[in-house]
């Protein structure tokens, strides 16, 4: 039996999700409404918008979910840009993709993605994803949150 632990992170947690399919973004948003942790989701539609968001917003997100296939700037290109920026490179980035190809997975880890997850397709899969994110990233991992986090 496992016991719940107090989160080592400040809540609400801010997650930036780059996803060009509106239905997938809504699906994720609905699932996070069931989360035990306080999570605020921010949505953008492609990698270029992620870069613009990070450059514009005074508060950096605690976690970024990046879809692999997006117009204008795709997930791997965006990841490289985040890792090349001294002010952003500490932000954990989880790549989300429909691809299960080993070369795609390896390519993302080589570019220093924090993790790679195959996109949940069904609601039970999505609930499992949300629970795994909460249990690890919210309640166990110590996120490199900004001092301004609240």
């Amino acid at each position: 039996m496992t016991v719940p632990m107090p989160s080592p992170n400040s809540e609400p947690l801010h997650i930036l999700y780059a996803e060009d399919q509106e239905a997938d973004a809504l699906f994720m948003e609905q699932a996070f409404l069931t989360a035990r942790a306080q999570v605020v989701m921010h949505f953008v539609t492609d990698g270029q918008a992620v870069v613009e968001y990070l450059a514009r917003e005074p508060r950096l997100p605690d976690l970024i979910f990046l879809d692999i296939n997006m117009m204008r700037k795709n997930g791997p290109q965006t990841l490289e840009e985040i890792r090349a920026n001294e002010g952003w490179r500490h932000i954990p980035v989880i790549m989300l993709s429909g691809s299960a190809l080993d070369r795609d997975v390896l390519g993302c880890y080589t570019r220093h993605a924090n993790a790679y997850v195959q996109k949940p397709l069904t609601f039970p899969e999505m609930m499992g994803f949300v629970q795994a994110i909460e249990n690890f990233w919210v309640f166990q991992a110590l996120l490199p949150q900004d001092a301004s986090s609240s």
Partner: protein
Amino acid sequence: MTALKIPSPRAPVNILIAHPDEDVMLRLQLALRAITTPAALYHVKDETSLFSFLRKASPYETAQRPDMILLGCALMAALDRLKSDNPFSPIPVIVMATDITRDQSRQAHARHANACMRIPSDTPGMRSFAAALDGFWFRTARLPVNPDV
């Protein structure tokens, strides 16, 4: 006749614990033995042994490539080598310590640690730690498979 499909047994994940403290290592091993995913656990105490293990140098000639490295904060200097040494850079590295600070977490992430965790001091906390690790990394995330190693 239709052949009966029998799922193949899942290969264990190889977890390398790199930590100088024997007590922490034993408590981690105990907790990780209880996770759902079959796991093979290995242990090294310092940076030299860590790279010998990865390169299958003596006395680790038969070592398996780890799927994940749990790296004690005291061995943080190894992180830069791990993440720049190309064959090993994709391996997820979780930096952990009993008293890791937010600032250390930020530094570790900026140096491409995959995550940072505080090691719980009690048994129930350690079980939750291992279960969360299992739930995300071994049952949700895809781990990298390097075809060249």
